[in-house]
């Protein structure tokens, strides 16, 4: 790529160079040919060196004076011509070089070059994110710099400028380019050994599918995380052997199902996504009749969840575009609309879900429904992230932002793989199991615990790794001791242990640890800090394991 820059410069500088050479040559030749006069009035012929020296400083407007002797009038006449001649040539040359710096083609080549270098210099594993928008930004915010770096490809130059203004640290290399072009993917480093994967969450399934196909051909080893919004698409991706297909509507449908049938499993899942570990009243899915307003992709997904949960519901047909065209408004609630709400028996229902594709319509549907039935529980789809404040202010029980769900799911898959596993395992259990777990977590780790993932290896548990490789037998409960007083317990819970392909949900405390085990630990910051000290510091570890200071 360096080559290209040099060629662009050379090509552009051709004319300025020619102009400078020709003007210099003519001026020099003139000075040599015109007879001069030396200090004593004798005739004197300027040599080429004298002339070259004089013209060089004349043309660059430095002007040291007439050399080697004061000029006579013939020479001065020539020089006054040559000044205009060479100075114009010189300025043209300089101007051409300056304008070259602003040249579009050169700037593109330069930015491409710096992007390439930035990507090459990344030595951590990195993900290529295609498209920069609200979803991908929230992924970058959380993922960048932790264990992974991010590279962004985006079609729109303005969005790239936006990204640069965000000042991500560490820097997120970004480049303007069409993500479906394999050349661009290569530039973004898809061939690199440390490329961990590619994230493609475009709204258009066709684009995602194209990217998935190209990426798989280019590099078989990387993770391909794609969005799919329909069943056929999911099937298609599965047939391509892609494991990480994210269907936001499927996630919503499952959440509704678990929210109704097993609220504690739902809570555990939501907690993994950043919800507090407490079932608030407004979070509870009421029992009774549901109304789904809008039968788009979200509406259908919700319907599926409700049907599976065995809940009574009605679904109302609603075409946002036609509605706006017909009534020329985005405010829902004229007489006809009210009549349709009445017909849906709002007064006899417990929950209304506004799932149309227009935020304002969703809000007004909820408002109208509340007028008719003040006790009704409300859920709404929010389409654009900008309107979040209005939605929060309007006291809707549940807000579904498809984009955010997608971003969270992607982030958890990449950065919190054990949490993902835990959710899958927990779904196989029943609600009482989940309730017991939640109570236990509350008792041991407080009202609002967080979770951590760690691995028994050199980087994460230095001391423990050393002890284990010496052949020491260390169990999970051995480590659950305070480093201030080993008789006391550390407030942590082992939620899940992953050993190779095997998964132990709520592992037994007497289970001996092995190298390479991955642990999902629930705790607060302070206790987890202590745990990290214990597994990393050999003295802390020996104290906790009960070695006396003398032995």
């Amino acid at each position, binding site marked *: 790529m360096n080559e290209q820059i040099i*060629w662009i410069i050379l090509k552009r500088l*051709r004319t300025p160079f020619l102009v400078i*050479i020709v003007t210099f040559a003519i001026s020099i030749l003139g000075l*040599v040919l015109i007879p001069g006069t030396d200090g004593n009035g004798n005739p004197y012929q300027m040599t080429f060196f004298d002339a070259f020296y004089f013209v060089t400083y004349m043309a660059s407007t430095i002007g040291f004076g007439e050399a080697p002797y004061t000029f006579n009038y013939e020479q001065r006449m020539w020089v006054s011509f040559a000044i205009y001649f060479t100075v114009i040539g010189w300025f043209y040359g300089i101007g051409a070089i300056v304008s070259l710096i602003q040249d579009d083609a050169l700037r593109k080549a330069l930015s491409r070059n710096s992007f390439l270098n930035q990507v090459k210099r990344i030595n951590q594993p990195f993900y290529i994110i295609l498209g920069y928008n609200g979803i991908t930004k929230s992924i970058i915010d959380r993922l960048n710099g932790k264990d992974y770096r991010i590279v962004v490809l985006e079609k729109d130059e303005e969005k790239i400028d936006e990204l640069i203004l965000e000042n991500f640290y560490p820097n997120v290399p970004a480049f303007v380019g069409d993500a479906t072009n394999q050349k661009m993917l290569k530039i973004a480093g898809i061939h690199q050994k440390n490329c961990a994967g590619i994230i493609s969450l475009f709204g258009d399934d066709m684009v995602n599918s194209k990217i998935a196909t190209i990426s798989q051909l280019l590099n078989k080893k990387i993770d391909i995380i794609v969005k799919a919004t329909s069943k056929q698409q999911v099937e298609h991706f599965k047939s391509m052997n892609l494991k990480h297909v994210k269907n936001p509507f499927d996630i919503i449908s499952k959440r509704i199902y678990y929210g109704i049938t097993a609220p504690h499993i739902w809570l555990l899942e939501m907690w993994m996504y950043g919800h507090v570990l407490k079932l608030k009243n407004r979070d509870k899915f009421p029992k009774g009749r549901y109304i789904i307003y809008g039968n788009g992709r979200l509406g259908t997904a919700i319907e599926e969840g409700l049907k599976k949960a065995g809940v009574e519901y009605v679904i109302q047909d609603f075409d946002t575009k036609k509605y706006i065209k017909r009534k020329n408004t985005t405010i829902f609630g004229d007489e006809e609309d009210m009549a349709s709400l009445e017909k849906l028996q709002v007064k006899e229902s417990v929950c209304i879900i506004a799932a149309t594709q227009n935020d304002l319509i969703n809000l007004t549907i909820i408002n109208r429904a509340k007028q008719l039935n003040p006790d009704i529980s409300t859920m709404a789809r929010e389409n654009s992230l900008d309107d979040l404040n209005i939605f929060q202010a309007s006291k809707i029980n549940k807000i579904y932002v498809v984009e955010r769900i997608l971003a969270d799911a992607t982030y958890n898959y990449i950065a919190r793989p054990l949490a993902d596993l835990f959710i899958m395992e927990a779904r196989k259990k029943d609600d009482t199991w989940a309730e017991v777990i939640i109570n236990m977590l509350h008792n041991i780790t407080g009202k609002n615990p967080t979770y951590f993932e760690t691995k028994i290896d050199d980087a994460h548990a230095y001391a423990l790794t050393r002890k284990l490789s010496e052949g020491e037998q260390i169990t999970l409960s051995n480590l659950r001791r305070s480093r201030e007083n080993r008789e006391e317990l550390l407030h942590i819970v082992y939620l899940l242990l992953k050993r190779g392909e095997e998964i132990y949900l709520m592992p037994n405390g007497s289970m001996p640890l092995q190298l390479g085990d991955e642990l999902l630990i629930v705790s607060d910051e302070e206790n987890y800090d202590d745990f990290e000290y214990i597994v990393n510091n050999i003295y802390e570890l020996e104290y906790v394991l009960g070695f006396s200071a003398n032995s």
Partner: protein
Amino acid sequence: MNMHKIISGSFFILAMTVNFGFFYGDPTILIEHSSYELFAAIVVNLIATVLKLGDRTQLGAVLLATSIVADIQLIASATVWAFAEYIVKDVGTEAATAIVSLSGGALLANIVSVILFIADTIKSKR
């Protein structure tokens, strides 16, 4: 036939011929080698070099390389001349031979360049 080809071709050949004009003659006698001709050779060679800029083909790169060699040789020749004249203040036989033989080297480079140029022309199908 295109104008750019005619102009650049004539400069490539002119660079060689002017260079030969300066080189031709007894190398020990500087009177036989005109300083004007050396000046012309340098200017024409520089122009030829610039005309070869920006050609991305393999041949273009080799042509540019030969031209740069000729430039270096000719400028070295002029530098030796100026040095002998103003610093040593005596252009003896040794300096004269150096000046002429440096331009001889440039001539070789120019001949290579012209041969490549002609070869390319013959090879072209039109």
